[in-house]
């Protein structure tokens, strides 16, 4: 009996903790946005972080995009050839990437490549009292350290997602046209005819922007909130990757329901 009660109490405590953290993160977001003036008045702060978060993520994002596109084409061919619809290959590759895989996979990669680095860096600055030292020097660490990293993430990810999709489409083209021998004209022509700029591309971009806000907030929040010890920072880094992945996938589901339900209803 007691064990069951304890179990329920445990659920209660965990839930309350999670909600409290969510509230805390929301207040943190407000504080970051309020302190963002410095970031845009002193572009050098932002540029440094754009380099770390964005430019250094380029290689992994571009490589992954290329390979995901190539695999999509290989797998897509398998299916399309059964229905004699191989000329729809371009549409399949482009829609999969632009609507889903671009934002989602780029988001996941960004969280593990740049998000974790941001968390670790801010967490270590906290552990070694660098944030406290700034505060005592009358410099707001949220404005000086957190906001530039947050905005760098928000700006980088949509571009990375777009590059991912672009390279993916190119990878699909390489496999479909150059390797399998589907007609290039059909590949590009069908794609241009079927992919809608507003409906498909813009919705994909919106997704990547929403993911960018989510992942960047999680990364800076986990770093700032980390327990100031070695284990604390390592746990926070792990949490950034896990929470970001869950956030991206659930948000993706919700956004997809709203954005593309027209095609479900027919």
């Amino acid at each position, binding site marked *: 009996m007691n064990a069951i009660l304890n179990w329920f109490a445990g659920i209660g405590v965990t839930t309350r903790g999670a909600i409290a953290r969510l509230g805390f993160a929301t207040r943190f977001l407000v504080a970051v946005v309020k302190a963002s003036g410095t970031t845009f008045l002193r572009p050098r702060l932002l540029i440094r972080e754009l380099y770390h978060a964005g430019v250094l993520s380029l290689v992994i994002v571009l490589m992954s995009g290329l390979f995901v596109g190539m695999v999509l084409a290989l797998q897509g061919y398998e299916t399309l050839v059964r229905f004699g619809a191989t000329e729809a290959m371009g549409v399949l590759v482009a829609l999969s990437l632009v609507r889903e895989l671009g934002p989602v996979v780029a988001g996941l990669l960004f969280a593990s490549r740049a998000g974790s680095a941001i968390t670790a860096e801010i967490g270590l*600055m906290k552990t*070694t009292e*660098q944030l*406290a030292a700034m505060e*005592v*020097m*009358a*410099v707001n660490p949220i404005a000086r350290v957190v906001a530039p990293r947050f905005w760098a993430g928000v700006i980088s990810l949509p571009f990375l997602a777009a590059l991912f999709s672009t390279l993916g489409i190119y990878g699909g083209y390489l496999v479909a046209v150059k390797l399998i021998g589907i007609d290039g004209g059909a590949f590009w022509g069908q794609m241009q005819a079927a992919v809608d700029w507003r409906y498909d591309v813009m919705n994909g971009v919106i997704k990547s922007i929403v993911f960018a806000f989510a992942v960047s907030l999680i990364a800076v929040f986990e770093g700032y909130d980390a327990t100031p010890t070695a284990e604390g920072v390592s746990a926070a880094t792990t949490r950034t990757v896990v929470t970001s992945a869950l956030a991206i996938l659930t948000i993706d589901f919700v956004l997809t329901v709203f954005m593309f339900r027209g095609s479900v209803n027919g």
Partner: protein
Amino acid sequence: MPTRIDKIPAMSSSPTPDGVARSENAGDGSPMIELSEVAFGYTKARQILSGVTLSVPKGKLVAVMGGSGCGKTTILRLLCGQHAATSGRVKVSGKNIDEMSRDELFSHRRRLGMLFQFGALFTDMTVFENVAFPIREHTDLPEPVLHDLVLMKLNAVGLRGAAHLKPSELSGGMARRVALARTIALDPELVLYDEPFAGLDPISLSIVGQLIRKLNDALGMTSILVTHDIMESLKIVDYIYFIADGKVVAHGDVESIRRSTDPFVKQFVNGEPDGPVRFHYPAKPLAEAFSGASA
């Protein structure tokens, strides 16, 4: 180049945030800092300070000493408003720090320099940029002036040649001295030094000691020095407070500390293992703890 540096001393005291001339408010004996019956604990379960009362007059250099873990760093944290006292009053220039508005706290911190116990250097910046940081953030000095000012501060701690290094390339004692240079970069009115001598060789130690004294007198600073180095303190400070069990247990000027017969002070001054100062963190008796572990 030398002519430029020669001009700096006049300049270095000019960027005080409020423009108050130092000589007027220095050394007139009114208290810069007053703690009365201050109690504080990081957790409810364990109180660290339980009624600390001390005062530091303007323009003086005061040492705060006590066993490891007695709450010296904690007192400094209360003084820069990182934590709020649970009871009692912490006053700086007559103003209660808990009642300060955001702006007041901000201006208090701009007039304050704090040397952190573990340096807290910014690891993503060079030594030069670390020292330049507070100057860049709070003044609009032109780059050449800033450059000379930073080199002058580094020169004072003997590390002008290390300006281009990253904190990871410094030894412990060098990092301490860079942190010291950063602390005094803006010539603060009130300086809190948390163990400035830790990790320094005897020569650097005495140079840094002299520097702290000189800064205090030449720029009319008020300084609090937290240290374990009783011998160096006796040479340079005006007054000493001893903390134990969350309270001030002894205080006095250098002469009276030297002559003191108080068992606590004697133990501390002579570094005796036996006496009122506990070496051990509160714990179960040793026998109990050991039998507990083997059971």
